[in-house]
């Protein structure tokens, strides 16, 4: 009881401080970033406006005007086709009018614009910020076009990934603290110091990056941030080592310290690059991109998708139709993969077969070919005019088929491609499992007079089950999300009918720019798969005893 209380008493403040620090850092970062963006945007807008009024001649006149020292010309452009992926970029020229030269010709982002202008400008404020004024000649002398005051680039502007990583590291350490019994020397202190270090490392690097940019090194900030990341990793590694060593000395009696030390690197990586983006995606599904902003729309995307707003419940592009197509697609493919793979494996496993190794090597070739190449080649083969498949039909005296004009032929083309692509995996899995079945079982069966079929039914299949079931489950998830084949072979033709859930989500996001809606759609895909996982988990657990009995390919 007291132990428990002490433990909570020790841990609770730790979590609270951590939480508060995280929130505070987030808020500050947000504030400074917003403020900075706002000033820079306003500045650039002013400049663009001025530039529109004056025109290129204006800037030439400006350059000739001896009263003007500095001028800046800025334009806003959008870098690419996707309004979301390619943000607005600000390009600016700052000109030293007296010397008649361009000082900072092209600058990539708003921060760089601000920075360049501050450097061409005049005042260095005592708080570390810069103020710059850009002036244009007017009838009444100079007039100020825009004044910009930069925030001192605050060291608190932690990049959010750094914060996420730090929180994860801190959480892992917290777990360790929980496992240690309280009051044992310096363990909690060490944990706190480590997490503080983890948080401060990206902070410090950020500061370094800013400084370097201020003094105008030729290094890009991307280089610096990349270096910062690696440095953070380099710092984290010895810290982990210290933790490991201290664990080894037994300063912390956690019995699980080794286990956590071993899984930590993978879990941190997974957390930052898989879990965090996933969470971000879920948040995205509750917003809609309007103009340049994300607007909160709550669950309305989900409602729209599930109620099939704007279309019938059962037609291409409705969630339910697409789900049904996806289910059919998965079922047919997994069945074909498994049956072809198993059948070929049974043939290859015969002890008397010759050229076994040759067949085995040649049959897994499709696996080695990148799937997008496979898909494109098969698409060519199914082409109505020059495709090989129709050519073959012609040789057999049949009329050419327009493969992508109707649902079933397009679906068949997809399935053919994916089967070609996928059977080697099941072949290899089955082959390995078959080899692990002891031969004396068959000999015994033969002595008892069992037929081939009986042997297959009562020896082979049950012993293959533990290997095949996980492979089938994994295969079903992969097929369910198989993007390349559908997108590249049939491309959803005719009229989105053969699209599966993921390709439809891709279209929604990248062809129709409905990012929020596409995110909600993707979350629903995940929910469907999760439900499937729950259903099949029971099947997996039923296998537990047989796994223990039949396991061990070696």
């Amino acid at each position, binding site marked *: 009881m007291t132990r428990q209380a002490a433990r909570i008493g020790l841990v609770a403040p730790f979590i609270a401080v951590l939480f508060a620090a995280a929130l505070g850092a987030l808020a500050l970062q947000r504030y400074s970033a917003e403020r900075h963006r706002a000033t820079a945007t306003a500045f650039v807008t002013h400049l663009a406006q001025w530039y529109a009024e004056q025109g290129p001649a204006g800037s030439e006149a400006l350059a000739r005007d001896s009263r003007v020292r500095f001028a800046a010309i800025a334009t806003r452009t959008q870098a690419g086709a996707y309004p979301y*992926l390619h943000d607005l970029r600000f390009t600016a020229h700052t000109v030293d009018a007296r010397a008649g030269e361009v000082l900072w010709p092209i600058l990539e982002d708003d921060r760089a614009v601000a920075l360049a202008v501050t450097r061409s400008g005049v005042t260095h404020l005592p708080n570390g910020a810069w103020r710059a004024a850009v002036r244009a000649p007017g009838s009444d002398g100079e007039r100020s076009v825009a004044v910009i005051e930069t925030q001192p680039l605050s060291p608190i502007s932690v990049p959010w990934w750094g914060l996420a990583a730090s929180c994860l590291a801190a959480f892992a350490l917290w777990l360790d603290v929980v496992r240690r019994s309280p009051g044992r020397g310096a363990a909690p202190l060490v944990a706190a110091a480590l997490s503080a270090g983890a948080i401060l490392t990206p902070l410090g690097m950020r500061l370094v990056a800013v400084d370097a940019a201020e003094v105008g090194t030729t290094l890009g900030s991307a280089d610096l941030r990349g270096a910062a990341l690696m440095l953070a990793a380099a710092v984290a590694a010895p810290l982990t080592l210290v933790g490991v060593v201290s664990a080894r000395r037994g300063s912390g009696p956690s019995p699980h310290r080794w286990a956590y030390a071993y899984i930590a690197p993978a879990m941190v990586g997974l957390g930052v690059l898989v879990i965090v*983006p996933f969470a971000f995606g879920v948040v995205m599904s509750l917003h809609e991109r309007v103009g340049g902003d994300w607007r909160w729309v709550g669950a309305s995307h989900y409602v729209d998708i599930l109620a099939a707003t704007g279309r019938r419940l059962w037609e291409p592009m409705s969630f339910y139709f697409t789900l049904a197509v996806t289910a059919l697609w998965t079922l047919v493919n997994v069945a074909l993969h498994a049956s072809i793979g198993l059948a070929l494996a049974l043939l290859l496993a015969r002890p008397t077969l010759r050229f076994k190794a040759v067949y*085995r090597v040649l049959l897994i070739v499709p696996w080695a070919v990148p799937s997008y190449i496979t898909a*494109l080649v098969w698409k060519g083969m199914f082409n109505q005019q020059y495709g090989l498949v129709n050519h073959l039909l012609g040789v057999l005296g049949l009329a050419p088929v327009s493969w992508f004009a109707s649902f079933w032929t397009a679906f068949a083309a997809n399935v053919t491609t994916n089967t070609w692509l996928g059977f080697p995996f099941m072949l290899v899995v089955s082959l390995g499992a078959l080899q692990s079945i002891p031969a004396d079982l068959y000999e015994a069966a033969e002595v008892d007079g069992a037929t081939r079929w009986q042997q297959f039914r009562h020896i082979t299949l049950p012993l293959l089950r533990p290997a095949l079931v996980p492979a089938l489950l994994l295969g079903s*998830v*992969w097929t369910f*999300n198989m993007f390349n084949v559908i997108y590249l072979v049939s491309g959803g033709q005719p009229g989105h009918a053969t699209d599966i859930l993921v390709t439809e989500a891709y279209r929604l996001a990248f062809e129709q720019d409905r990012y929020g809606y596409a995110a909600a759609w*993707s979350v629903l895909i995940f929910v469907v798969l999760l439900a499937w996982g729950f259903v099949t988990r029971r099947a997996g657990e039923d296998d537990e005893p047989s796994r223990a009995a039949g396991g061990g390919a070696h």
Partner: protein
Amino acid sequence: MRRLLPHLVLLVATVVALFPVAWVVKMALRSSQTFSTSLSPWPDEVSLVQFEALFADPVFWRQVLNSVVVASATTAVGVFLACTAAYAFSRYRFPGRRAGLQVLLVTQMFPGTLMMIPLYRLIESMGLLDRALGLVLVYSTTAIPFCVWQLKGWFDTLPKELEESAIMDGAGPLTLFWRIILPLSRPAIAVTALFSFMTAWNEYVLAATFMGDERAYTLPVRVQSYVGAYTTEWGLFAAGAVVVSLPVMALFFVLQRHLVGGLTAGGVKG
């Protein structure tokens, strides 16, 4: 007849498996950019024009280098992360073990379309767009779940007695892992490495999204660039496809003995 039938079936399967590959090779050896329409998979001419055109481009070599760097770094990082994690999941019983394993499975269900935009933002905020490091980070972490399950299955099959006797001899946890477990797991590690390598070497969608600069492309993006919306330069595409596929095929060929055993242990005990 009974002896011939298996050969017949296997031959047909082999022909079907090799046909499209032979087809690509044939197109790569032609001098025109059109899709070949004759049925025979044998090359009707042997011309190295396409390869010459490809190899003469200095940017192409730069892209080869990108691919090699990305794929080998991914393999190194991915295998390291997967080995350590799989070892813990296989040998230790700790709170969170089951949950951790479930999480690994669940991440396999995340649809790529949901991850793409957030990943882009993440990589962008790290300043790693157009950089090999960005792809390496993403590839090695997305490959972790499968690799961990795979290796855990293998580790599970290694007898515990080995480690027990090593502990009797005074080996610490690190020694166990480095000196006992890893050397015994070479086949499984080779297969895991092969998969990590393939993931990175063959991946197209993310590479195309993250790499805007032609000099930063990996090979799949390059090869894909020959496929246009209306016309496709089949000759160059095929030559590129051959170049991309060859290393993976070679690795498959070298590792195929391990493939059967290494993969199945993971499956059996998964």
